[in-house]
């Protein structure tokens, strides 16, 4: 996306979301998947996903299904970008340094 990531607030919930994606950086996860793994409520989760996407840490796309044949709406799948992977790794690394120091 080429967006700046300076506006991302590193709240505890944001870190938990990033941690879920860092488990398998290539995995594409819907909001319901992230909720199931980290337990963050929808009222907090979706603004975080949108913020990270806006900052260029995530990209999203629609699930490749036909809603009429599947009988349900398409899910929105999120994935870490290379920028997001690098920045998230740096954030966790800084936390680890701070803890170990």
């Amino acid at each position, binding site marked *: 996306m080429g967006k700046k990531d300076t506006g991302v607030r590193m709240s505890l919930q944001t870190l938990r979301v990033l941690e879920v994606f860092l488990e398998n950086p290539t*995995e594409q996860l819907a909001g319901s998947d992230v909720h199931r793994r980290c337990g963050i*409520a*929808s*009222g*907090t989760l979706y603004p975080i996903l949108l*913020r990270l996407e*806006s900052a260029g840490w995530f990209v999203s796309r629609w*699930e490749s299904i036909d809603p009429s044949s599947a009988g349900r*709406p398409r899910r929105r*799948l999120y994935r870490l970008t290379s920028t997001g992977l690098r920045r998230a790794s740096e954030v966790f690394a800084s936390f680890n340094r701070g803890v170990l120091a």
Partner: protein
Amino acid sequence: MSRRNERSTQPDPNGVAHWLILRAARRAPESLASRLEEEWLADLASRSSALSRLRFAVGCCWATLVIVSDYPRNRVPAASSAAAARGLITLADRKFGYFSLRSGTLFLVAGLHAALFYGLITTLSHTRSSATPPDLQNQVVKPVPPEKLPPPLLSGMTMLTVPKLVVEPPPMIHVDNDAPTQVPDTLPEPYTPPLPPQAQPHVVEQVAGGPGAGFPDTADFYPSQSIRAEEEGVSTVRVCVDPKGKLTSDPTTVRSSGSARLDEGALKLARAGSGHYRATTEDGQPVSSCYPLGIRFQLKK
């Protein structure tokens, strides 16, 4: 997508959660509304229990508020191609539903407080006005012509009337010795209108006593409960008075008004009047005597 949710629970289109999500998505920025609606409905389908779905939908409502407040800062790629084709998403795209919701809530809370305050004020005002007994006034009892007095117990009977109380406007209590219609049956029709001054006694051997100067205000003894219950009646008490106008024994009720409260009020009035009775006179000399005293409690309609 290795952990894809395999459940295909279709949300009830008429469910509350479904409705909440549609409403929340519509309040989102225009370029995100359709995307969020589809995304949230898809994620709603992965929730199995009704409570979980409802919590999810409520959370989406809250997410809309946060997204709207974040929107100028965090512009997300639009879901709709039309919005994306515009390239630039301006501040005009932002919906101000958050502010309208907040303002509406503020006005609602303020309105509820105002209504509650008004209700309390009006209720308390009504209660106070109905619970406050009206002001009562008393008039000095006039002496009864001796020749018209009955000869019952010792001397004649004086009727103390507390007539015509008004509940809403301050009532007037009229006290005189006019003969009421509810006087005891033992009295041989002594209650005729006062004679004109020319008819006042000129040859008097015995003058009956009665309430004298400084006699307590009868208004203070009209029971408040009787006023509220609109109880009326004549209570006749027997008082024994010495030459100085003091009670020589405790007054007793000789004829009930039909209300225990009124009778008790009459007794209290009679006791409180000790020292302020006008003694019965014989040939102009005050003597000890006992006589009935009628006290009328009457409300003015």
